[in-house]
């Protein structure tokens, strides 16, 4: 059986300051495509945060009665709200595509006896769930199903 290594085995032969590079961002970090995409993914946080409060406003108006709900729907026809909802939809699609690509890679290799399904199957399953839930909500809220 091998003996454990000496605690000082990796120390430099001459004592002195360990030469390590200080952590620093590359000079071109804001213009690099990879960083831009990464920052855009983080920036969707602001869109989601506002969207959560807009849905809260809608729920509150709905609970306040028919007049408040009609007023809310009328306010949603304002170009600012329409633009915000369009930007939110684009942000959600961006987040979904990026996150669903990452999700299968982030799964543990095994949980007890269970192994996750193959990555392509998991990836496709997420898209099927996404499309299915979206179609169901559009059908229910759009008045297609009673």
């Amino acid at each position, binding site marked *: 059986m091998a003996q454990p290594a000496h605690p000082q085995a990796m120390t430099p032969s001459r004592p002195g300051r360990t030469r390590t590079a200080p952590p620093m961002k590359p000079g071109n970090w804001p213009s690099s495509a990879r960083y831009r995409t*990464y*920052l855009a*993914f*983080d*920036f*969707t*946080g*602001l*869109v*989601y*945060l*506002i*969207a*959560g*409060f807009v*849905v*809260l406003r*809608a*729920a*509150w108006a*709905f*609970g306040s*009665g*028919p007049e408040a*709900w*009609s007023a809310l*729907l009328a306010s*949603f*026809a304002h170009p600012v*709200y*329409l633009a915000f*909802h*369009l930007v*939110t*939809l684009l942000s*959600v*699609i961006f*987040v*979904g595509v990026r*996150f669903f690509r990452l*999700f299968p890679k982030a799964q543990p290799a095994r949980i007890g006896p269970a192994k996750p399904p193959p990555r392509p199957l998991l990836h496709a399953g997420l898209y099927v*769930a*996404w499309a299915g*839930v*979206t*179609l*169901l*909500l*559009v059908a*229910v*809220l*759009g*008045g297609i199903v009673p």
Partner: protein
Amino acid sequence: MKHFLLKIEPVIWLLFGAGIMVGTILLPGYLLTVGLAGPLGLLPADALSWERLHGMVSHPIGGLLFRLVLLALIALPLWKGAHHLRHFLIDLGGGGRDAVVAPLLYLLAAAGSVLGILAVVRL
């Protein structure tokens, strides 16, 4: 504060992860109908009427599901938003202010979530 933030990190991550996954899956259906098609007049006249939707909320099983989906649509994007916005600000060099910014963002998400619970209870 830094120690406290590290302590609650698993809870924040749980809500953040749920916000990305569930929020992202639920939001397009809501945005396409209530946010865009309804205001643009592309839906049947009574599709988003208060009476029709209230009928759904009043259903014993469907109403509970409706409220849960609505609460998820409110609270989960708030937590995803707060956590991602925190890291966006850190990436832009605001790490020194994180001890103030992070609690403010999480308090905002928590307050919105509590109001969300009240909003779906009073439907």
